[in-house]
């Protein structure tokens, strides 16, 4: 269980987040949605432990997050940020192995290697293992980073839950990989992880998320099960008329937009 309580975040004179409280249960795929500048990424940085909130507390399995927890936290919590660029030539396999860094001391064990191989297989990049990361396309880089995050929390922790956080993970992926990716994310959730993703693609979120957390202007507007989403809420969030229409493919509706007269 991940809990955040009364989170405020001020950077300079600007208040980025106002009084956010939420609980993220394990076994579910949570998606954070909201228009640009609503504070989604800042919120993710705060509960990931990268940024300290001005006020409020983040609890992992009931324990408040402290700066000294960095190494221990890395063994149970993986974060996939928006694809980092690296300035040195490094093979893909080495990047994925970084996900195992919190788990071994000097040299990786056979188990660490096996986990990396499985993680690369899972995101269909096994064939890229020897390629230089710098030469990959944006979408390939995103899949490498996903494999790295997966390998970091691949095995159950001795005690407590595992956490997987994804910051706009599918922005450079084409449709097929977007679906493969979110399918995998949901699969991780069904294995008992707390999985939280920040997404832009509303329809994809409607299709895969178990709960949706809507943010706007630094405030939490709603945190609801996906089935409870309605057009009025989406219209209020995105400031554009939204309609939900059923599809023949499953229970999740499709959001379509009727642009306002500008």
């Amino acid at each position, binding site marked *: 269980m991940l809990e955040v309580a009364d989170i405020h975040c001020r950077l300079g004179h600007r208040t980025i987040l106002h009084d956010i409280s939420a609980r993220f249960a394990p076994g579910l795929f949570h998606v954070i949605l909201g228009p640009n500048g609503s504070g989604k990424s800042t919120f993710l940085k705060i509960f990931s*432990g990268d940024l300290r909130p001005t006020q409020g507390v983040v609890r992992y399995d009931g324990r408040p997050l402290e700066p000294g927890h960095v190494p221990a936290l890395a063994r149970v919590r993986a974060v996939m940020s928006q694809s980092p660029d690296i300035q040195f030539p490094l093979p893909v396999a080495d990047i994925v192995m970084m996900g195992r860094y919190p788990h071994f001391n000097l040299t990786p064990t056979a188990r660490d290697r096996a986990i990396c191989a499985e993680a690369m297989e899972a995101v269909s990049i096994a064939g890229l293992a020897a390629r230089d990361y710098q030469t990959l396309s944006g979408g390939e880089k995103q899949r490498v980073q996903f494999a790295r995050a997966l390998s970091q929390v691949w095995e159950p922790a001795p005690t407590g839950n595992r956490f997987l956080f994804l910051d706009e993970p599918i922005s450079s992926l084409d449709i097929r990989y977007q679906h493969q990716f979110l399918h995998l994310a949901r699969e991780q959730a069904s294995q008992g992880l707390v999985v939280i993703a920040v997404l832009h693609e509303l329809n994809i979120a409607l299709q895969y998320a178990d709960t949706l957390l809507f943010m706007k202007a630094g405030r939490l507007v709603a945190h609801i099960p996906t089935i409870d989403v309605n057009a009025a809420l989406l219209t209020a969030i995105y400031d554009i008329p939204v309609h939900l229409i059923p599809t023949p493919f499953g229970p999740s509706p499709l959001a379509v937009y009727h642009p306002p007269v500008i």
Partner: protein
Amino acid sequence: MNTNRWPFGVYYALLSGLLLGALLLSVRVGAVSLDFSDIGRYLAHAFRHETSGNIREQLFLQIRLPRVILCTLVGAALSVSGALMQALFRNPIVEPGLVGTSSGAALGAAFVFVMGQTLQHTWIGLAGPLLLPLFAFAGGLTATLIVYRLSGVFGKTNVNTLLLSGIAVNALGASGTGFFSYVARDPQARSIVFWNLGTVSGADWNSVAVVGVSTLGGLLLSLRLGKALNALMLGETDAGYLGVRTARLKRQVILLNTLLVAVATAFVGVIGFVGLIVPHILRLLKSADNRFLLPASALLGGLLLNMADVLARTIVAPSEFPIGIVTALAGAPVFLFLLVRNNRKLQKGGFYA
């Protein structure tokens, strides 16, 4: 044959072998050539604490041997520091001569050379023989911190700001050093040439001892940082997510780099480009993995600086010229190549760069 498949150990063995060869060549040649049989005899004498009045033996034990060892140590120190700095700035074109560490250290050392007599009578004089390395350290640290702060540590290092602030800090350091060498009354005052181009001709056992302690200590401490520095390639935020305490890591790297470079610079002046070329060659040869780069840089750095010194000693023998001329001649083209490639990559990266 794909040499890239060889494990790290093969490279360490190869580099160690080559370094040994370079050492053997280096103790032999120079203004006076020595035979291995003579060298063996001199070494045996030295171990039994016998001294003979033989001038060639004195030359070997008091000049040649310390010089070769100092050269190895300095090459290792500068190269390890280059690898450290490139990892810290997350940029392959960084080296201690560029980011001000060397010129700052030179300024601190020049200050001690000129003002040392005066300082002896104050409380600072209590530091005694450690005065020189201490001041070099302070100068190098200040210069490095200035450039590091200015070049933007948040997210990406801005290469333009980095190079420009490096130029400014280097100019400042060089002008201070120039001032001190100009006002020096000491007849054997170190010349500007010494500070700007570096030379190992002043090597003695005292400098070998001091540089030896700082280099070996710095190297051993830096070896523990390899994994964390690899994670830092992803950026500070992601390194933190991988369990690296980034603030502490950055402090450690800057202090280690200053220790390695400042102490070496205090005794041999500013030797440029070694710290740039050596990690670059190793990345091309094998891997950018810092767990490999750090120890391998020490070996290859010692090797290359010895070869540079052999050239500096033999090309115009029996005279010699500053070793920095050789390293700049070899290093500047590599630097330009990296800079051009770096710029091209930024342009190609477009929106995401």
